């Protein structure tokens, strides 16, 4: 199939973009209003790259992401109700409330691991891909991580092993210019993370993650390569973290002009305009936006109306069978 997103594909990417965008917005408003009290990592500004990447996948493909993963999880198809219930610590959540936002897991939609440890998803992604390679199930694994994560040892070990074994895995570095409070140039000694791909003999592609067409094209090509058994790809998707590292966190260390630029280039309204320019009727977009708001309304209501897990859950799922003694 072609690498270029057709009109329907772009509209689907937009739907996922809006779902992510409004969900992030809703999380922040509930936190602001005190209706929810959790540690939340905003994804504002990174909606489009996730929506485009996951749209290029099959539903049964695997995803591994991080604490900042709401965009990836929703784009992969994880049901809003289960996400919200888990983030609210309810027994109806994906993980019965035991994992929480940093550990969202939902194998049914391919969300296999969400990790809170920087870089640790990459070696695990190789394992998922190894299983697919041995079973011949044709699945592709995508692992999401940040620019800061590219400086930790696990990144290096995983990249070399993936290329050595030609694993069907895609390393999606979401370069949002900051690792927590540290600017890219203060934590990385080279201009681009993709500069590292050749050191592993791996294909590396740097792309504008905020451009749905470019991002989809890059994703599509990487997915096709992986599925065809041609090995892994490192994608560096350029974006910008429009808010603090976590909700309510200091943002003062980000230069005003950079923030201004980020707002000016906000990918979500840009994408909407792009669709209108393509003569997509605004009514269609409004319909999508309304449907998304309803989905979130229902999910939040479901979550907040759900019970908390029983304390006995502490002793469950530690081992598959009750431990000896």
């Amino acid at each position, binding site marked *: 199939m072609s690498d270029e997103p057709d009109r329907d594909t772009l509209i689907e990417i937009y739907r996922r973009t809006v779902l992510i965008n409004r969900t992030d917005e809703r999380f922040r408003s509930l936190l602001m209003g005190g209706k929810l*009290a*959790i*540690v939340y990592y905003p994804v504002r500004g990174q909606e489009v790259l996730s929506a485009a990447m996951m749209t290029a996948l099959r539903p049964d493909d695997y995803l591994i992401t991080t604490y900042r993963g709401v965009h990836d999880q929703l784009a992969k198809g994880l049901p809003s109700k289960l996400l919200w219930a888990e983030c609210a*610590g*309810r*027994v109806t959540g994906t*993980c*019965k*409330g*035991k*994992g*929480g*936002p*940093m*550990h969202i897991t939902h194998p049914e939609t391919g969300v296999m691991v969400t*990790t*809170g*440890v*920087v*870089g640790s998803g990459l070696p695990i992604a190789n394992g998922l891909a190894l299983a697919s390679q041995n079973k011949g199930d044709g699945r592709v694994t995508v692992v999401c991580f940040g620019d*800061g*994560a590219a*400086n*930790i*040892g*696990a990144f290096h070990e995983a990249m070399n092993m993936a290329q050595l074994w030609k694993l069907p895995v895609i390393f999606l570095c979401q370069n949002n210019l900051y*690792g*927590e*409070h*540290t*600017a890219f140039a*203060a*934590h*990385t000694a080279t201009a681009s993370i993709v500069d590292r791909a050749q050191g592993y003999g791996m294909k590396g592609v740097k792309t504008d993650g905020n451009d749905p067409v470019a991002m989809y094209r890059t994703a599509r090509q990487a997915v096709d390569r992986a599925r065809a058994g041609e090995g892994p790809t490192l994608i560096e998707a350029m974006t910008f973290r429009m808010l603090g590292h976590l909700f309510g966190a*200091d943002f*003062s*260390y980000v230069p005003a002009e950079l923030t201004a630029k980020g707002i000016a280039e906000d990918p979500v309204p840009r994408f909407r305009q792009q669709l209108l320019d393509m003569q997509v009727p605004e009514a269609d977009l409004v319909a999508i936006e309304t449907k998304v708001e309803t989905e979130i309304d229902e999910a939040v209501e479901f979550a907040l109306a759900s019970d*908390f*897990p029983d*304390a006995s*859950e*502490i*002793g469950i799922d*530690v081992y598959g069978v009750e431990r000896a003694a």
Partner: protein
Amino acid sequence: MSEGPAKLKKISIAQGLHMALDEAMAADENVIALGEDVGDEQGGGVFKITAGLSTKYGKHRIRATPISEQAIIGAAVGAAIAGLRPVAEIMLMNFVTVAMDQIVNHAAKLRFMSGGQTHVPLVIRTTTGVGVGFGGQHSDMLEAWFAHVPGLRVVMASNPADAYGLLASAIEDDDPVIMIENILSYGIQGPAPEPGYRVPLGKAAIAREGSDVTVIAYGKAVLDALAVAEQLAGEGVSVEVVDLRTIAPFDEATVLASVAKTGRAVIVHEAVKAYGTGAEISSRIHEELFDQLKAPVGRVGGSFSPVPFSKPLETAWIHSQEQVADAIRATLQRKGE
């Protein structure tokens, strides 16, 4: 606290840590600090302990690092061997898991393996704690691992003056010290220490005197012990509270003297109870005071599971003051000889 100052001015544990670091850097240009986000360009650190220091002492002495814990601890080990006194920060304790080789195979062993030719005056500060709602990968208390490694010292403060005095002593010490902090304790207020106040490494404090039973605790658990002691005083039970301060190697002399006096002991820590530091302390007490003990030594600790996210589960996971009180009562119900 039996030791320490009693000035009226109060400070927080976070301020105590900042003061100790600031004074150490002012006193000795060989003292440096490194870790993620520790510089003022990064907002002075996630918990602001290092705020202002890079501006005051320069970016060559306060080094904001990439997310590279092996490189952070490794650089600190090398700098220490070469005569600096690094204070390395691991943002959260669960992340020591990527740096254990540098801490255990290197920092802890280089003095011994070099026959004393080199040594590693290194402080590793890290924080953690159950109750923040961080879930399974950001809440663990792993002090038992380090306690099991000869060559390391592990310390934890229960109040601002000790935080100041322990960190200052750790920086001045010629061997590696792991200083564990608790996110939920940073705000705890207490009397400000006199400048120059030091808490000697390896020395516990009698946080409260008592005669019926000894409760041994460290860090945040000391506050639970003190609260329970106060409550039980109302029931006519006299509880002595030992604040270990140095978790390992622990102050056996003080602990054994107290239990020899009371004949009963309960150990409380936030870490998972099974195979925790309480097991070693309990074993040592039984080994040394078997005939004097009126009851088996009790242990109170975290549940045997990863730390759950959901608030009610997280609250149930960690020990409650009721559990501490019950453990004390259990030792009292024993007739003894």
